[in-house]
Protein backbone atom coordinates (compact mmCIF):
# COMPACT_ATOMS: atom_id res chain seq x y z
CA UNK A 1 0.00 0.00 0.00
CA UNK A 2 2.81 2.35 0.89
CA UNK A 3 4.38 1.78 -2.52
CA UNK A 4 1.11 2.44 -4.37
CA UNK A 5 0.92 5.75 -2.54
CA UNK A 6 4.46 6.66 -3.60
CA UNK A 7 3.68 5.74 -7.21
CA UNK A 8 0.42 7.73 -7.46
CA UNK A 9 1.93 10.79 -5.77
CA UNK A 10 5.08 10.74 -7.90
CA UNK A 11 3.22 10.35 -11.20
CA UNK A 12 0.17 12.55 -10.74
CA UNK A 13 0.21 14.76 -7.65
CA UNK A 14 3.85 15.82 -7.53
CA UNK A 15 4.56 15.33 -11.20
CA UNK A 16 8.27 15.85 -11.66
CA UNK A 17 7.92 18.34 -14.52
CA UNK A 18 4.61 20.05 -13.90
CA UNK A 19 4.76 20.42 -10.13
CA UNK A 20 8.44 20.11 -9.19
CA UNK A 21 9.98 21.81 -12.24
CA UNK A 22 12.76 19.32 -12.80
CA UNK A 23 14.03 18.60 -16.30
CA UNK A 24 12.35 21.54 -18.04
CA UNK A 25 15.08 22.01 -20.68
CA UNK A 26 14.62 18.58 -22.32
CA UNK A 27 10.89 18.90 -21.67
CA UNK A 28 10.81 21.93 -23.97
CA UNK A 29 13.61 20.72 -26.24
CA UNK A 30 12.57 17.23 -27.30
CA UNK A 31 8.79 17.56 -27.11
CA UNK A 32 8.19 18.68 -30.69
CA UNK A 33 7.52 15.12 -31.90
CA UNK A 34 5.85 12.19 -30.14
CA UNK A 35 8.56 9.72 -31.27
CA UNK A 36 11.42 11.66 -29.69
CA UNK A 37 9.34 12.22 -26.56
CA UNK A 38 8.87 8.47 -26.14
CA UNK A 39 12.60 7.87 -26.72
CA UNK A 40 13.58 10.48 -24.17
CA UNK A 41 11.05 9.13 -21.67
CA UNK A 42 12.47 5.63 -22.01
CA UNK A 43 16.07 6.86 -21.70
CA UNK A 44 15.25 8.83 -18.56
CA UNK A 45 13.49 5.83 -16.99
CA UNK A 46 16.48 3.62 -17.70
CA UNK A 47 19.18 5.95 -16.42
CA UNK A 48 17.19 7.31 -13.49
CA UNK A 49 16.59 3.84 -12.03
CA UNK A 50 20.24 2.81 -12.28
CA UNK A 51 21.55 6.17 -11.08
CA UNK A 52 19.27 6.21 -8.05
CA UNK A 53 20.38 2.75 -6.96
CA UNK A 54 24.07 3.57 -7.38
CA UNK A 55 23.95 6.97 -5.66
CA UNK A 56 21.82 5.53 -2.82
CA UNK A 57 24.36 2.80 -2.17
CA UNK A 58 27.21 5.31 -2.34
CA UNK A 59 25.52 7.60 0.16
CA UNK A 60 24.80 4.81 2.64
CA UNK A 61 27.98 2.82 2.09
CA UNK A 62 30.59 5.52 1.62
CA UNK A 63 29.54 9.06 2.47
CA UNK A 64 27.64 8.38 5.70
CA UNK A 65 30.06 5.92 7.37
CA UNK A 66 32.91 8.37 6.79
CA UNK A 67 30.85 11.42 7.75
CA UNK A 68 31.52 13.26 4.52
CA UNK A 69 27.95 14.04 3.44
CA UNK A 70 29.03 17.51 2.36
CA UNK A 71 30.70 15.89 -0.64
CA UNK A 72 27.28 14.65 -1.78
CA UNK A 73 26.82 17.11 -4.65
CA UNK A 74 30.28 16.55 -6.12
CA UNK A 75 30.15 12.77 -5.75
CA UNK A 76 26.67 12.37 -7.18
CA UNK A 77 27.20 14.51 -10.26
CA UNK A 78 30.49 12.80 -11.12
CA UNK A 79 29.00 9.36 -10.60
CA UNK A 80 25.98 10.24 -12.72
CA UNK A 81 28.11 11.68 -15.51
CA UNK A 82 30.35 8.62 -15.68
CA UNK A 83 27.38 6.29 -15.27
CA UNK A 84 25.66 7.79 -18.30
CA UNK A 85 28.85 7.29 -20.34
CA UNK A 86 29.10 3.70 -19.15
CA UNK A 87 25.47 2.94 -19.88
CA UNK A 88 25.99 4.33 -23.36
CA UNK A 89 29.00 2.10 -24.00
CA UNK A 90 27.31 -1.01 -22.58
CA UNK A 91 24.09 -0.54 -24.52
CA UNK A 92 26.04 0.08 -27.72
CA UNK A 93 27.78 -3.28 -27.30
CA UNK A 94 24.95 -5.38 -25.87
CA UNK A 95 21.87 -4.18 -27.66
CA UNK A 96 22.36 -2.15 -30.86
CA UNK A 97 18.59 -1.73 -31.45
CA UNK A 98 18.15 -0.23 -27.99
CA UNK A 99 21.12 2.02 -28.67
CA UNK A 100 19.51 3.12 -31.91
CA UNK A 101 16.41 4.11 -29.99
CA UNK A 102 18.01 5.77 -26.95
CA UNK A 103 21.50 6.68 -28.18
CA UNK A 104 20.89 10.29 -29.12
CA UNK A 105 19.26 11.08 -25.81
CA UNK A 106 21.85 9.58 -23.50
CA UNK A 107 24.46 12.38 -23.62
CA UNK A 108 21.67 14.89 -22.96
CA UNK A 109 20.74 13.13 -19.75
CA UNK A 110 23.81 14.12 -17.72
CA UNK A 111 22.59 17.70 -17.54
CA UNK A 112 18.99 16.62 -16.95
CA UNK A 113 18.32 17.78 -13.42
CA UNK A 114 15.75 15.01 -12.86
CA UNK A 115 18.54 12.50 -12.31
CA UNK A 116 20.52 14.49 -9.74
CA UNK A 117 17.29 15.87 -8.26
CA UNK A 118 15.78 12.46 -7.56
CA UNK A 119 19.10 11.12 -6.26
CA UNK A 120 19.21 13.93 -3.69
CA UNK A 121 15.46 13.81 -2.93
CA UNK A 122 15.42 10.13 -1.95
CA UNK A 123 18.21 10.82 0.53
CA UNK A 124 16.37 13.85 1.94
CA UNK A 125 13.13 11.90 2.24
CA UNK A 126 14.93 9.12 4.10
CA UNK A 127 13.61 6.37 1.83
CA UNK A 128 14.76 2.76 2.00
CA UNK A 129 16.46 1.27 -1.04
CA UNK A 130 13.27 -0.40 -2.26
CA UNK A 131 11.09 2.67 -1.90
CA UNK A 132 13.84 4.74 -3.57
CA UNK A 133 13.70 2.45 -6.59
CA UNK A 134 9.89 2.59 -6.65
CA UNK A 135 10.04 6.37 -6.37
CA UNK A 136 12.62 6.62 -9.17
CA UNK A 137 10.61 4.43 -11.55
CA UNK A 138 7.38 6.28 -10.76
CA UNK A 139 9.03 9.68 -11.20
CA UNK A 140 10.42 8.60 -14.54
CA UNK A 141 6.96 7.34 -15.54
CA UNK A 142 5.51 10.73 -14.58
CA UNK A 143 8.21 12.41 -16.64
CA UNK A 144 7.48 10.25 -19.67
CA UNK A 145 3.73 10.81 -19.25
CA UNK A 146 4.06 14.60 -19.10
CA UNK A 147 6.50 14.59 -22.03
CA UNK A 148 4.27 12.44 -24.24
CA UNK A 149 1.07 14.38 -23.47
CA UNK A 150 2.91 17.65 -24.06
CA UNK A 151 4.39 16.46 -27.37
CA UNK A 152 0.98 15.48 -28.72
CA UNK A 153 -0.29 18.96 -27.88
CA UNK A 154 2.75 20.55 -29.50
CA UNK A 155 2.26 18.59 -32.72
CA UNK A 156 -1.17 20.21 -32.91
CA UNK A 157 0.23 23.57 -31.90
CA UNK A 158 2.67 23.54 -34.82
CA UNK A 159 -0.30 23.77 -37.20
CA UNK A 160 -2.02 26.59 -35.32
CA UNK A 161 -1.68 30.28 -36.10
CA UNK A 162 0.01 32.02 -33.18
CA UNK A 163 0.96 35.73 -32.78
CA UNK A 164 4.54 36.31 -33.90
CA UNK A 165 6.03 37.17 -30.51
CA UNK A 166 4.37 34.11 -28.95
CA UNK A 167 5.68 31.57 -31.46
CA UNK A 168 7.88 28.73 -30.26
CA UNK A 169 8.80 28.67 -26.60
CA UNK A 170 6.37 31.28 -25.14
CA UNK A 171 3.26 29.48 -26.37
CA UNK A 172 4.78 26.14 -25.34
CA UNK A 173 5.31 27.48 -21.82
CA UNK A 174 1.74 28.74 -21.56
CA UNK A 175 0.46 25.37 -22.82
CA UNK A 176 2.59 23.66 -20.17
CA UNK A 177 1.00 26.00 -17.62
CA UNK A 178 -2.48 24.87 -18.64
CA UNK A 179 -1.33 21.25 -18.52
CA UNK A 180 0.02 21.86 -15.02
CA UNK A 181 -3.35 23.30 -14.07
CA UNK A 182 -5.01 20.11 -15.28
CA UNK A 183 -2.61 18.05 -13.18
CA UNK A 184 -3.48 20.16 -10.14
CA UNK A 185 -6.84 18.41 -10.28
CA UNK A 186 -5.08 15.33 -8.90
CA UNK A 187 -3.98 17.07 -5.71
CA UNK A 188 -5.64 15.61 -2.66
CA UNK A 189 -5.76 12.15 -4.19
CA UNK A 190 -2.76 11.24 -2.01
CA UNK A 191 -4.89 11.66 1.13
CA UNK A 192 -6.54 8.35 0.25
CA UNK A 193 -3.30 6.44 0.77
Amino acid sequence: MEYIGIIIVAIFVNNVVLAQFLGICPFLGVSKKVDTAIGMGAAVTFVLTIATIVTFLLQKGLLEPFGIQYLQTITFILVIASLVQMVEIVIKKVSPPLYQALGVFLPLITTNCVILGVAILVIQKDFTLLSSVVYAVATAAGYALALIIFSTIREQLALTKVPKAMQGVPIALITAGILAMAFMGFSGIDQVF
Partner: protein
Amino acid sequence: MTKNIRVLINGVVKDNPVFVLLLGMCPALATTSSGINGMSMGLATMFVLICSNIVISTLKNLIPDLVRIPAFIVVIATFVTIVEMVMNAYLPALADSLGIFIPLIVVNCIVLGRAEAFAAKNNVLSSLFDGIGIGLGFTLALTALGLTREFIGTGKMFSVSFFPEDFGMTLFVLAPGAFIALGYLVAIFNKIQRE
Protein backbone atom coordinates in the same frame (compact mmCIF):
# COMPACT_ATOMS: atom_id res chain seq x y z
CA MET B 1 37.87 47.90 -21.27
CA THR B 2 35.07 48.82 -23.69
CA LYS B 3 35.14 45.20 -24.84
CA ASN B 4 34.58 44.02 -21.28
CA ILE B 5 31.69 46.44 -20.80
CA ARG B 6 30.16 45.13 -24.03
CA VAL B 7 30.53 41.55 -22.75
CA LEU B 8 28.73 42.62 -19.58
CA ILE B 9 25.83 44.33 -21.38
CA ASN B 10 25.51 41.41 -23.81
CA GLY B 11 24.96 39.10 -20.87
CA VAL B 12 22.09 41.18 -19.56
CA VAL B 13 20.26 42.05 -22.78
CA LYS B 14 21.30 40.32 -26.00
CA ASP B 15 22.28 36.98 -24.45
CA ASN B 16 19.90 37.07 -21.51
CA PRO B 17 20.13 33.48 -20.26
CA VAL B 18 16.45 33.06 -19.40
CA PHE B 19 14.55 35.25 -21.85
CA VAL B 20 16.72 34.79 -24.95
CA LEU B 21 18.87 31.66 -24.57
CA LEU B 22 16.16 29.83 -22.60
CA LEU B 23 18.69 28.16 -20.32
CA GLY B 24 18.34 27.42 -16.64
CA MET B 25 14.58 27.13 -16.87
CA CYS B 26 14.21 24.77 -13.91
CA PRO B 27 15.35 27.19 -11.18
CA ALA B 28 13.72 30.07 -13.08
CA LEU B 29 10.34 28.39 -12.76
CA ALA B 30 10.73 26.66 -9.41
CA THR B 31 12.24 29.33 -7.17
CA THR B 32 10.36 32.43 -8.30
CA SER B 33 7.25 32.20 -6.14
CA SER B 34 8.25 35.62 -4.74
CA GLY B 35 10.58 38.41 -5.78
CA ILE B 36 13.02 37.85 -2.94
CA ASN B 37 13.29 34.10 -3.59
CA GLY B 38 13.94 34.70 -7.28
CA MET B 39 16.59 37.27 -6.50
CA SER B 40 18.38 35.04 -3.97
CA MET B 41 18.47 32.16 -6.41
CA GLY B 42 19.83 34.51 -9.07
CA LEU B 43 22.53 35.81 -6.75
CA ALA B 44 23.54 32.30 -5.66
CA THR B 45 23.88 31.25 -9.30
CA MET B 46 25.77 34.46 -10.10
CA PHE B 47 28.29 33.74 -7.35
CA VAL B 48 28.92 30.24 -8.68
CA LEU B 49 29.11 31.54 -12.24
CA ILE B 50 31.65 34.25 -11.46
CA CYS B 51 33.87 32.01 -9.30
CA SER B 52 33.83 29.08 -11.71
CA ASN B 53 34.50 31.39 -14.67
CA ILE B 54 37.54 32.85 -12.90
CA VAL B 55 38.95 29.49 -11.80
CA ILE B 56 38.34 27.77 -15.12
CA SER B 57 39.87 30.58 -17.18
CA THR B 58 42.88 30.51 -14.87
CA LEU B 59 43.30 26.75 -15.18
CA LYS B 60 42.37 26.42 -18.84
CA ASN B 61 45.93 25.63 -19.96
CA LEU B 62 46.46 23.03 -17.23
CA ILE B 63 43.30 21.00 -17.85
CA PRO B 64 43.77 18.30 -20.50
CA ASP B 65 41.24 18.62 -23.28
CA LEU B 66 39.88 15.07 -22.88
CA VAL B 67 38.77 15.43 -19.27
CA ARG B 68 37.67 19.03 -19.74
CA ILE B 69 34.01 18.59 -18.87
CA PRO B 70 34.47 16.47 -15.69
CA ALA B 71 37.10 18.95 -14.50
CA PHE B 72 34.71 21.86 -15.06
CA ILE B 73 31.98 20.00 -13.22
CA VAL B 74 34.24 19.45 -10.19
CA VAL B 75 35.12 23.16 -10.07
CA ILE B 76 31.45 24.14 -10.34
CA ALA B 77 30.35 21.56 -7.77
CA THR B 78 32.93 22.88 -5.31
CA PHE B 79 31.48 26.38 -5.42
CA VAL B 80 27.93 25.04 -5.27
CA THR B 81 28.85 23.13 -2.11
CA ILE B 82 30.26 26.34 -0.63
CA VAL B 83 27.03 28.22 -1.39
CA GLU B 84 24.99 25.35 0.04
CA MET B 85 26.95 25.22 3.30
CA VAL B 86 27.00 29.01 3.80
CA MET B 87 23.28 29.26 3.14
CA ASN B 88 22.45 26.41 5.53
CA ALA B 89 24.53 28.08 8.22
CA TYR B 90 23.43 31.71 7.91
CA LEU B 91 20.13 31.75 5.98
CA PRO B 92 18.33 28.54 6.98
CA ALA B 93 14.86 29.90 6.05
CA LEU B 94 16.00 30.81 2.55
CA ALA B 95 17.86 27.51 2.17
CA ASP B 96 14.60 25.79 3.06
CA SER B 97 12.49 27.60 0.49
CA LEU B 98 15.03 27.14 -2.31
CA GLY B 99 15.52 23.53 -1.20
CA ILE B 100 16.89 21.11 -3.72
CA PHE B 101 17.53 23.81 -6.31
CA ILE B 102 20.70 24.95 -4.55
CA PRO B 103 22.60 21.68 -5.19
CA LEU B 104 20.98 21.61 -8.63
CA ILE B 105 22.96 24.72 -9.66
CA VAL B 106 25.59 22.13 -10.63
CA VAL B 107 23.48 20.94 -13.54
CA ASN B 108 22.34 24.43 -14.51
CA CYS B 109 23.25 24.56 -18.20
CA ILE B 110 24.14 28.27 -17.93
CA VAL B 111 27.11 27.66 -15.64
CA LEU B 112 28.62 24.75 -17.57
CA GLY B 113 27.69 26.45 -20.85
CA ARG B 114 29.61 29.62 -19.99
CA ALA B 115 32.58 27.60 -18.71
CA GLU B 116 32.76 25.71 -22.00
CA ALA B 117 31.83 28.53 -24.39
CA PHE B 118 33.57 31.48 -22.76
CA ALA B 119 35.87 30.85 -19.81
CA ALA B 120 37.77 28.04 -21.55
CA LYS B 121 38.69 30.38 -24.40
CA ASN B 122 39.15 33.82 -22.84
CA ASN B 123 41.40 35.49 -20.27
CA VAL B 124 40.56 35.90 -16.60
CA LEU B 125 39.36 39.50 -16.77
CA SER B 126 36.85 39.06 -19.58
CA SER B 127 35.66 35.79 -18.01
CA LEU B 128 35.01 37.75 -14.83
CA PHE B 129 32.95 40.30 -16.75
CA ASP B 130 31.13 37.55 -18.63
CA GLY B 131 30.25 35.91 -15.31
CA ILE B 132 28.98 39.21 -13.91
CA GLY B 133 26.99 39.96 -17.09
CA ILE B 134 25.32 36.58 -17.48
CA GLY B 135 24.81 36.31 -13.72
CA LEU B 136 23.20 39.75 -13.63
CA GLY B 137 20.98 38.87 -16.59
CA PHE B 138 19.89 35.69 -14.81
CA THR B 139 19.29 37.51 -11.52
CA LEU B 140 17.27 40.27 -13.21
CA ALA B 141 15.19 37.74 -15.12
CA LEU B 142 14.43 35.71 -12.00
CA THR B 143 13.64 38.83 -9.98
CA ALA B 144 11.29 40.10 -12.71
CA LEU B 145 9.53 36.75 -12.90
CA GLY B 146 9.34 36.48 -9.11
CA LEU B 147 7.94 40.00 -8.76
CA THR B 148 5.35 39.40 -11.49
CA ARG B 149 4.15 36.21 -9.84
CA GLU B 150 4.18 37.74 -6.36
CA PHE B 151 2.29 40.83 -7.55
CA ILE B 152 -0.44 39.00 -9.48
CA GLY B 153 -0.64 36.21 -6.95
CA THR B 154 -0.68 38.08 -3.65
CA GLY B 155 -0.75 41.79 -4.49
CA LYS B 156 2.69 42.35 -3.01
CA MET B 157 6.11 43.29 -4.34
CA PHE B 158 9.08 42.36 -2.13
CA SER B 159 6.45 41.86 0.62
CA VAL B 160 5.15 45.47 0.26
CA SER B 161 1.40 45.24 -0.18
CA PHE B 162 -0.25 46.99 -3.16
CA PHE B 163 -3.74 45.50 -3.02
CA PRO B 164 -5.46 43.12 -0.59
CA GLU B 165 -4.24 39.55 -0.81
CA ASP B 166 -7.81 38.26 -1.27
CA PHE B 167 -7.94 39.82 -4.74
CA GLY B 168 -4.77 38.03 -5.89
CA MET B 169 -4.82 35.06 -8.24
CA THR B 170 -3.27 32.34 -6.08
CA LEU B 171 -2.68 30.32 -9.23
CA PHE B 172 0.29 32.53 -10.08
CA VAL B 173 2.11 31.56 -6.90
CA LEU B 174 1.47 27.87 -7.67
CA ALA B 175 3.11 25.75 -10.36
CA PRO B 176 0.92 26.61 -13.41
CA GLY B 177 1.40 30.34 -12.88
CA ALA B 178 5.16 29.92 -13.21
CA PHE B 179 4.83 28.54 -16.73
CA ILE B 180 2.23 31.09 -17.79
CA ALA B 181 4.05 34.12 -16.36
CA LEU B 182 7.38 33.05 -17.89
CA GLY B 183 5.66 32.41 -21.24
CA TYR B 184 4.28 35.95 -21.35
CA LEU B 185 7.55 37.53 -20.15
CA VAL B 186 9.52 35.72 -22.90
CA ALA B 187 6.93 36.87 -25.46
CA ILE B 188 7.19 40.49 -24.24
CA PHE B 189 11.01 40.32 -24.32
CA ASN B 190 10.82 38.93 -27.89
CA LYS B 191 8.54 41.75 -28.95
CA ILE B 192 10.73 44.47 -27.45
CA GLN B 193 13.91 42.99 -28.93
CA ARG B 194 12.45 42.80 -32.39
CA GLU B 195 11.54 46.50 -32.44
